[in-house]
């Protein structure tokens, strides 16, 4: 980034007029971010320390200290479950996406015909609305007439509950999420692979390295920032999952697919417990912030190594 400050600020009229224009250009975008993003996050933290149903005026909210946090972690039966489910969902999806994303990127990066066509096909689910995919997969995984159960019966296996089975529903949701976003991570890995200079591989071959060694000692280490990016963006996205769960199970059966944002949504907009919901939001925000900071740290360490 090039954000060096000039030693002194321009004093001539012409320069001043330019400065005026610069302020005019940034005024609305910055004001908007303050009103709809930065301000709200402070407000959200403030609300998490109060009891509020959004009907009483803001200045009359009773202050309750950390009681909302205490409540969601010790007395709310659903929140710890939602926390566990959300983490399971994120970790499951991320690990599959990293492995399969890299594997398919390697396949597509080798000599292959019709690369654009493959990319387009693999990318179709990424741009499709999660609600539409949820509807289609609810059909596919239907306990009674879904195609997957018919397939199981055909090969002589018993029918499964899938989205109706508390032991399976979350894994089905992970599968649908991987289906939707795998193409995105393939494209990112593919871009990463194409950024590695061919010279490295040529040099390795001259030194007698086989392709497995080249993968292990050149491809993987050089892809480290890409993998880090995939892990972080995917975790951040998966930790906020809402649409898919809302339109398939709604958190059922037995809260086995209840996620943090869905529980927060219910707490806030069904039960009007804004304080508790804000405490949940802030807890998840802290987790996401932590992941982002770890990513920045790891990326900086890497530049020192170089």
């Amino acid at each position, binding site marked *: 980034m090039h954000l060096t*400050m*000039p030693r002194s*600020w*321009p004093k001539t009229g012409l320069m001043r007029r330019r400065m005026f*224009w*610069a302020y005019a*250009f*940034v005024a*609305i*975008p*910055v004001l*908007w*971010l303050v009103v*709809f*993003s*930065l301000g*709200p*996050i402070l*407000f*959200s933290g403030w*609300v998490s320390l109060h009891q509020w149903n*959004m009907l009483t005026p803001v200045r009359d909210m009773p202050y309750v200290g950390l009681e909302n946090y205490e409540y969601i972690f010790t007395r709310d039966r659903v929140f710890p479950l939602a926390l566990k489910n959300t983490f399971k969902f994120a970790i499951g999806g991320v690990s599959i996406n990293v492995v399969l994303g890299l594997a*398919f990127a390697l*396949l597509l990066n080798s000599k292959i015909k019709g690369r654009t066509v*493959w*990319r387009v*096909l693999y*990318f*179709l*689910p990424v*741009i*499709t*609305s*999660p*609600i*539409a*995919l949820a*509807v*289609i997969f609810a*059909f*596919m995984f239907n306990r009674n*007439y879904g*195609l997957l159960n*018919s397939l199981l019966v055909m090969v002589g296996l018993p029918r499964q509950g899938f989205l109706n089975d508390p032991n399976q529903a979350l894994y089905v949701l992970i599968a649908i999420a991987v*289906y939707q976003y795998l193409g995105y991570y393939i*494209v*990112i890995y593919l*871009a990463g692979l194409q950024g590695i200079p061919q010279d490295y591989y040529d040099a390795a071959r001259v030194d007698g390295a086989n392709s497995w060694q080249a993968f292990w000692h050149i491809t993987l280490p050089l892809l480290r920032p890409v993998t*880090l990016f995939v892990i972080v*963006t995917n975790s951040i996205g998966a930790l*906020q999952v*809402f*649409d898919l769960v809302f*339109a398939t199970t709604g958190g059922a059966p037995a809260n086995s697919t209840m996620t943090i944002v869905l529980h*927060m949504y219910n707490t806030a*907009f069904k039960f009007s417990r804004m304080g508790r919901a804000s405490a949940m*939001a802030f807890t*998840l*925000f802290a987790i996401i*912030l932590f992941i982002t900071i770890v990513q920045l740290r790891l990326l900086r360490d890497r530049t020192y190594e170089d």
Partner: protein
Amino acid sequence: MRGTGTALSKLGTAAKYMILIGTAVLLVFPFVWMIDASLMTSGEIQSRPPVWLPKSPQFSNYPELLDNLPLGRFYLNSLIVTGATVIGVLFTSSLAGYAFAKYQFPGRVILFYMILATLMIPTFVTLIPVFYIVRQLGWIDSYAGLILPGISSAYGIFFMRQFIYSIPDELIDAARIDGATELRIYWRIVLPLTKPALATLGTFVFIGSWNSFLWPLLVVNSRELYTVPLGLNSLRTFAAEARSLHLLVSGTVLSVIPTLILFVFLQRYFIQGIALSGLKG
């Protein structure tokens, strides 16, 4: 030796294509099934063992759907909301991005770091306050409520600043010497030169806004303002109650097809944009 080598590599190539084709079939199958099932009767969709092709294609499913659901209205709403959001984000991002890339002014560094910090704020954390603010402004259940909170994007500003930074200063200075006003330079020089970046950012914002669900769900009450995902969601509950699954499937087809077509035409911008964002990260 050489013979086995080529045979092996041929086998490897065959395996490669098998995996690629198999996965592509798996990925496309739900879409194909959806179109197939949209022409079935409700009974055929639920039959055990499954029906693969409808006995006689029920093209009437589509007119029947449109009689029950004002999908045209939902499309219009989605177009208005998405169109306004895309234009708004492109305009604010390119303006602010230009200022941050090419102007010197007190507070520039602090404001830019502020925008970078905003990048890390997930939308759900601000959901309750933004809902409250929008309600205080009287924008609940209106286009304003659907559109206005989303017309400025920290990511967009950052993205445009990085792109505009690479435009040579000489071009801008030359225009200044010719007597062009600052606004005219933005409009006539900067904007045309950033077309590829605008196209990429525009496709991202389009898909995000078109598929957006949680915010419209909160801010809209009346059916006249439903966007396509909200309409599909209401169709989900309606179809379950009315036992008309065929309408749900044909509704899903109609909700998905436009984005698919758009994507096939614009896929270049997408893939470029994603590749860029991935490498930068």
